């Protein structure tokens, strides 16, 4: 019986589209798969990694399905569209970061209405038919706007961080949300996100309105091309960019939010 269950899980997971945030995607061999039925682990995967139990997978590109077996995930309040099995939904005041986190979020304008979903079965999440991108974190930090964060593993820690002018240019405030730890997170975007790698030789410039998230050790500068032509109404419309330097991944959406910078 347990065997059958494991196999079912396997087929679900292979269908999932996931990103290894570190970049190196490890293929699993057929031999690995054969052994899986006899192994006592429930979650399949490279044996070296610690896997959280909740399994994220995409149902189409706009619905996130999370398979849970008694464990929990944190999700945007009200993002549940359907579930089967037994689920409980608990509002987490202040994003589940305690009193200090709550005050910080209130002060920084990165309020997140978060609920904790716990139970057995499959829970489906979606947010205004926006595209969903899965990010697998292995110890690194994901920087994402609170409004773009749909769901995270309960094992991941969330917090806020100062971003400076970059945030201001996006019209999203001076602060952004961080997600840290090992596990999966789901972020939303307007149109499927393009994942761009930044290396030391090849820095990347991104339009503030198209930026949604990044991982890895990246330094960001706010780059402005404002000159006297902007002032006389001959601006290029691309006056502001965020320049990413270092090593990491940047998620951009094929769409631009309305930003102050976009008009100049």
């Amino acid at each position, binding site marked *: 019986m347990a065997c059958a269950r494991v196999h079912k899980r396997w087929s679900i997971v292979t269908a999932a589209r996931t990103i*290894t945030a570190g970049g190196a995607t490890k293929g699993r061999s057929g031999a690995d798969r054969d052994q899986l039925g006899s192994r006592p682990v429930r979650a399949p995967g490279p044996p070296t990694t610690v896997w959280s139990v909740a399994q994220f997978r995409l149902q189409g590109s706009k619905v996130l399905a999370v398979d849970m077996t008694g464990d929990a995930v944190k999700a945007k309040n009200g993002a549940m569209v359907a579930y089967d099995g037994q689920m409980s939904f608990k509002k987490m005041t202040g994003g589940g970061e305690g009193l200090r986190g709550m005050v910080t979020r209130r002060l920084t304008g990165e309020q997140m209405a978060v609920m904790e979903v716990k139970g057995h079965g499959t829970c489906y999440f979606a947010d205004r038919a926006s595209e969903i991108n899965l990010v697998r974190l292995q110890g690194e930090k994901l920087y994402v706007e609170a409004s773009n964060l749909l769901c995270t593993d309960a094992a991941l820690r969330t917090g806020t961080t100062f971003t400076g002018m970059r945030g201001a240019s996006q019209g999203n405030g001076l602060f952004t949300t961080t997600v840290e730890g090992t596990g999966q997170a789901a972020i939303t975007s307007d149109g499927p996100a393009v994942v761009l790698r930044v290396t030391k030789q090849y820095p990347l410039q991104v339009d503030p309105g198209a930026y949604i998230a990044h991982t890895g050790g990246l330094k960001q500068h706010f780059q402005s091309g404002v000159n006297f032509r902007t002032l006389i109404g001959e601006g290029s419309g691309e006056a502001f960019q965020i320049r990413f330097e270092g090593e990491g991944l940047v998620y951009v959406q094929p769409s631009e939010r309305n930003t102050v910078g976009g008009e100049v």
Partner: protein
Amino acid sequence: MTGPVIHDVATLPADDNVNPYAFSVDLNGQWFLQKGKMIAYYGSIDFHGIGHGRLDRLIAGSFHSPLHAADWVVAEGQGKMLLADRAFDVNSYDLEDGNLTIRSGNLLAFQPSLALKQSIIPGFLTLIGTGKFVAASNGPVVFVEPPIRVDPQALVGWADCPSPCHHYDHQYLRGFLGGLRAHTGIGGASGEEHQFEFVGAGTVLLQSTEVLMPELATGAVPDEAGVPGGGGHPAQSGSQLPQLPGGLGDLQRRFGL
């Protein structure tokens, strides 16, 4: 584990789609693009507004659309540049010594080997020459050949064939009630009584929804005799009678008042 592809400067396609919603330009020189459609780039690229003195020769050769000058920029430099537009489908098209007319809001970018001119049909732009351009559409583009009648909201553009004319269904024009119905919608109008009709040889580009992409107001064409849409004066009806209120002027005219 098949995740979304992670792109870097080397794996981004050259002048091709990254996914249906994003297009990667391998820039080596200059491209025209509509303001705000660049989402990210590698390399060193400068963006100049049209009217930048140094670009005078380029503009003179490729950009003949003063009404749209405020919406366009020239990207200059070397690198890979990603273009996208509000998560609409984007596609590139190659013109070979051809001409193509497209709704102005749909055109995202084009190579300077093409010349951009305003179509005499308001709200449309014509590209003439040889080169590549990138256009957005709401849903994938369908190519059809004339003779065909198309819904005005689904029309993206057309190539090579003569400009379209309006076509009204016959019932639209028949009788007093038909006229009333057409103008007020009372009594049931299907919403499909009016089409654009294409004839001749060429290709018509349609989008697969009837949701128009919002476009920027571009002002009016010069106030000259013989310029369609110019001047901003409404066409004078032959009648000297005072016009009925409530936008019924056309109706009045149809019944010969």
